[in-house]
């Protein structure tokens, strides 16, 4: 099996440089993330548009600022990752412009799971990283780094009203499997077990939610 092109030392050093370069974008990202969760908890008329715009901004930022402008230094594959993240950002932008879907927390399995995923990305993931010795500035920070952004995205999609749009979860799932797996198995970034498992669990819940929605629609027809 072909080995990874860089070490954990390089990977964490890259995050340190990235975080210092983009500061205080991390603070803005946290603000936007909290806003998106609040819009799901207390829906507004344009809440769906705003939350999708936030997700779009996160993914585009990760594609351009992280993958293209930083990660590409040490990994040629980052060019492809940048394209995928930009595509996901464009899909969310289209949803924001379309304005037909809204986020709403419901106290069911999907709503609680979604909220858990979001809070995990905002609070628990950085804590796990800190415990694993990857605290600031070497941390993968919510909204501006792929791992917590992917977990957050799946959480938000679980709180989306109506049928779960699986096409919006494909890239997050692929990323969580590929990058989460590589980070854990190749670099020993233990907190990324949550990305790997979260991707599988989140996508599985979305599939379940979609099936439930389809069953309800069929029963009412």
């Amino acid at each position: 099996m072909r080995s990874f092109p860089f070490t954990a030392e390089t990977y964490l050093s890259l995050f340190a440089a990235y975080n210092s370069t983009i500061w205080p974008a991390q603070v803005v990202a946290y603000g936007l993330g909290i806003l998106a969760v609040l819009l799901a908890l207390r829906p507004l008329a344009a809440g769906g548009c705003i939350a999708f715009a936030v997700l779009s901004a996160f993914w585009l930022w990760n594609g351009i600022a992280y993958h293209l402008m930083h990660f590409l230094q040490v990994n040629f594959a980052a060019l492809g990752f940048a394209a995928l993240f930009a595509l996901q950002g464009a899909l969310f932008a289209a949803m924001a412009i379309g304005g037909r879907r809204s986020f709403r927390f419901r106290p069911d399995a999907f709503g609680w799971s979604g909220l858990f995923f979001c809070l995990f990305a905002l609070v628990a993931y950085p804590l796990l990283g800190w415990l694993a010795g990857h605290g600031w500035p070497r941390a993968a920070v919510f909204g501006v780094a792929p791992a917590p952004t992917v977990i957050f995205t799946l959480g938000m999609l679980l709180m989306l009203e109506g049928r779960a749009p699986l096409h919006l979860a494909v890239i997050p799932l692929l990323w969580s499997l590929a990058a989460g797996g590589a980070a854990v198995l190749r670099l020993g970034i233990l907190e990324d077990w949550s990305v790997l498992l979260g991707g599988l669990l989140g996508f599985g819940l979305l599939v379940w939610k979609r099936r439930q929605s389809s069953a309800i629609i069929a029963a009412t027809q």
Partner: protein
Amino acid sequence: MNHLTRRTFVGSVAGLGAAATLPAFGQSPTAEPILKKAIPSTGEQIPVIGLGTWITFNVGNDEKLRAARAQVMQTFFDRGGSLIDSSPMYGSSEAVIGYGLARIKNRPALFSAGKVWTLLKTLGVNQMEASRKYWGIERFDLMQVHNLLDWSTHIQTLKEMKAQGRVRYIGITTSQGWRHGGLEEIMRIQPIDFVAFSYNIIDREVEERLLPLAAERGIAVIVNRPFQEGVLIDRMKHHPLPPWAGEIDCANWAQFLLKFIVSHPAVTCVIPATRRVDHMEENMGALRGRMPDAKMRGRMARYAANV
């Protein structure tokens, strides 16, 4: 290209011993001569231990890590090293090499081995020029087609560059046992100076066809992955060196494994990669002292297989 006859091949192998009697290359910390082998197509001698940069030199822009790699390079040159190998595929490694070369004190001659790793002629030419700038050198000594990628296009470009004096040697590489069939075909029909592939005391498949073919065709051999990216060292380090390792002047497992490789008559040079100065010092120890003969090589292989 001068193809290797049996007579010149034997001479090349014997040259290893002859080179060892030459004065030390560069600023050797010891008076003991270093081991060199001849590039068959020209007879130019190069030290048998080079420096690989896969993973280890891909440290991005981190100033501290770059300085640490420059120290590894300094040790490499101080101990008599010359050939450094890299590729655009290795992320920031080429830029880190350039950073290090600009800071090496009293640097002896560098033998620069670059690679082209892309599709299409234009992209290949641009990539090689970018690599040259990263390294901060006038020209590459050796330019290789990496992993056979679009090799039929790039080999033509490399032949032109060699004819124009823009590169001294040309070659082709693979690793981890990939595409050996294709590599063998290229070695048979193309006038290349170098070939690179993986070989170590456990993975010895290349002894069957590729190494004899390289000898027959007069192609220098660079060996990559001598430690299976550290796996072999990790496996061996829990066991003591055999007492007879002293007969070939091996003080540690790195030297044991490297001397096994470079003592193969068809191997010209091996390129272990490291990010640590102490490991570099261990590796460069294999550049000196007695080399195993065929009988000793067999003994080494049997011992390693049972560890």
